[in-house]
C-alpha cells in the first residue's frame, strides 16, 4: 500500500509537472532571441543613408513594398548605418539579407560600372584615439559577406568568423557599410548576433 501511494504520488507530481510545463509554454514570448536577451539585432535598410561619396545621395531607391534599397539603372551606391551594441558583448554572427541578379562579370561595365558585381556588406569599426596615421590601423573589418546567388531571390549570407568580436564602445565606433550595384541588386538589412 505504501509503495502504491508513493508511486501514485510520484505519478501525480510528474503529471502536474507536465501540465505546468504545457501551460507555461505559451508564456515564452514570440520571437525570443536564441542567443540571449535582445540579440540578435536587426538593422533594417531604412536605417541606412547614402555615403555621398559615390552616389551623392540621389541614386538609392527605398522600396516601400519590400523594404530594401536598390539603385537606379547602371549605377552603384554605398550605404552606411550606425551600430549600437552593448558594451562588453561579443559578436558571434553577422548576417545580411541581399538580392542579386547581377552575374559576376567585371567585364560588363554597362551593368555594373564599379568593382562590386556582388552586394557587399561589412561590419566595421573605427578607433577613436589620436594616432590617426596610418588610418588603416584604426579601422577594423569585423565581418564581411557578399551575395552568393544571382537569381534575383532575397537570400541571407552569413559570416561567423568575427574578427575582434568583443564590443568596446567609446574606444571604437561601429558601423555597417554596404555596396549595392545596379538596379538588379537590393539590400534588405543586417542581423547581428551577440552574447552578453
Amino acid at each position, binding site marked *: 500500500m505504501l509503495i502504491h501511494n508513493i508511486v501514485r504520488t510520484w505519478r*501525480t507530481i510528474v503529471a502536474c509537472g507536465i*501540465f505546468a510545463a*504545457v*501551460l*507555461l509554454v505559451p*508564456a515564452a514570448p*514570440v*520571437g*525570443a*532571441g*536564441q542567443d*540571449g*536577451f*535582445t540579440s540578435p539585432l*536587426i538593422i*533594417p*535598410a*531604412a536605417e*541606412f*543613408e547614402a*555615403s*555621398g*561619396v*559615390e552616389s*551623392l*545621395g*540621389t541614386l538609392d531607391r*527605398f522600396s*516601400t*513594398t*519590400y*523594404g*530594401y534599397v536598390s*539603385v*537606379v539603372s547602371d549605377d552603384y551606391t554605398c550605404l*552606411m*548605418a*550606425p*551600430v*549600437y551594441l*552593448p*558594451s562588453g558583448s561579443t559578436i558571434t554572427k553577422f548576417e545580411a539579407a541581399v538580392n542579386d541578379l547581377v552575374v559576376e562579370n567585371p567585364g560588363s561595365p554597362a551593368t555594373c560600372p564599379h568593382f562590386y558585381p556582388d552586394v557587399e556588406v561589412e561590419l*566595421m569599426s*573605427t578607433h*577613436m584615439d*589620436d594616432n*590617426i596615421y596610418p*588610418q588603416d590601423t584604426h579601422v577594423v573589418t569585423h565581418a564581411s559577406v557578399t551575395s552568393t546567388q544571382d537569381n534575383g*531571390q*532575397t537570400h541571407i549570407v552569413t559570416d561567423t568568423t568575427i574578427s575582434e568580436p568583443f564590443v568596446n*564602445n*567609446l*574606444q571604437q*565606433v*561601429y*558601423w555597417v*557599410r554596404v555596396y549595392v550595384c545596379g538596379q538588379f541588386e537590393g539590400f*534588405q538589412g543586417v*542581423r547581428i548576433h551577440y552574447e*552578453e
Partner: protein
Amino acid sequence: MKTRNHCLLAAVSIAVVLLSCATLEAATQSLMIPAASFSADGTDQYEYYNYGDFLETNVTLHFHAGVKLPNAARITNVDMMTLDDDSGTITMYLKRTKFGFDTGHETLLTFTSPGNIGCTTQGLCHDMEGSLDIKVDASNFNYWFDLVVPDDTGSGTDLRFYAVRIMYEVDDLIFADTFESTFTDMWDSDSAAKAATVDDGGAASADPADGLTTDERYEEFLSHLYVEDPLAHEALEKALKGVEGYGSPLVIPGPAFRSPGYTEFDDYYFSESYGFIYGRPAGEDGAVMTAGLNLPNGAEIAFFMAFYVDSRRDAYIDGNIRFWLERMDAADIIPTLTMVYTQTSGVDDDIRALSVNQSTMEAVEPGCTTINNDQYTYWLTIDVGPYDLSPPDPYADEEWWHKVYSIVILYTMP
C-alpha cells in the same frame, strides 16, 4: 479523476503565479523618433528640408526610418505628431518585412494627419493608435516607418512632420533591454573587464596579445586623447571602467546622421573607409546634418562630447565645426530648447574631443539634462566645414580637414 483535478488546479496555480511574476514586472517605455532620424527616398532631394525637429517638402515624398525595439516588446501606443492646417494630409505606415524573404511587407498601423485642423495654437496634431498589443519579433523582422509627406497646397498653410512616439512594454524578468529603456545594466561598461577583475581577486588580468591589463589599456587610450576638461576626462575613465552609476557611453557614429535635403542634400560625405563625416572641397558649403538622439528615460546627461579633427587654420573662414543638441516639447513646439551649442577651436591633425558639462546645460534650463522621452524629442545637428587639400601659401604643404567621428553622450542613471 480527483487526482487529475488536483493536478490541473496545481498546474494552473503554478502557471498563474509564474506568469504573474513575469508580467507584474513589465515596464512601459517610450521611444521618440524625431524627424532627424528619417531619410528621404533618393528622388527629389532638392524638394524637402529636414530641420531635425521637423521636415517638410515641396512635392510628395516618401521618408523612412527604422524602428529598433527590444525583442518581444509589446507596442501599446503609437502617436504621430504633425502640424497640419492644409487640405492635404500626411500619412505614415508602420511596416515590417521578414528578414531574408521576398514576401513583401505587412502594414501594422496607418496614421493620417487631420487636414485643415490647424493645431498651431494648440501644439502639435496627434494621431494616436492606442490599446495596441503588437508583439515585436525583432529576431526575424525588419520594422520601419514609411512616411508620405505631400506639398502643402494652400498659401500660408503648413504640412510638417515632427516625430513619432512609441509606447511599449518589456518584460524585464525575461529580457534585458536596449539603450532606449531604463534597463542599462547591459550598457554598464565593460562587463568582461569587470568579470576579469573579479576572477583574479581584484587585479585585472593581462591580455596575452599585448601584455596590458584592461585598465592599463584604458589608461593608454585615455592618455592619447585630447580632452581639455579634466572632469570630462575623469568621467570617460569612469564610464570605461564601469564605475557604478555611470551608464555606458552612447556613441553616435557618423553614419547615424541624415542629410537635410534641399540645396544642402549633397554637401556631405561619409568616409567609406573610416566612417567619419566630412564636407565638400574648399569653396563649397559645409555639411549640415542631423541625427535623432535616444537615451534611456530618466538618464541624466553628464557630458556631451564630440570626437573630431579640425586642422583648418582659424584665420580662414569656416575654420570651426559646430555642434548642437536640441530638444522639443511635443506638446508645445515653439520654441525648441538648445541645450548645447559649441564649436571647435584651434588647429591639430589629430583626433580631439571637446566636451560640454552638465552644469553648462543646466544653466540653459534647470532639469533639461534629465531625459524625458514621454514629452520631448532630442536631436543633434552638426555643421562640418569644407576641407582643403591645397591651402594658400605659406601652408601649401598642409592638408586642412574637418572630420566628425562621433558624438558621445556620457550619462548617469539615478
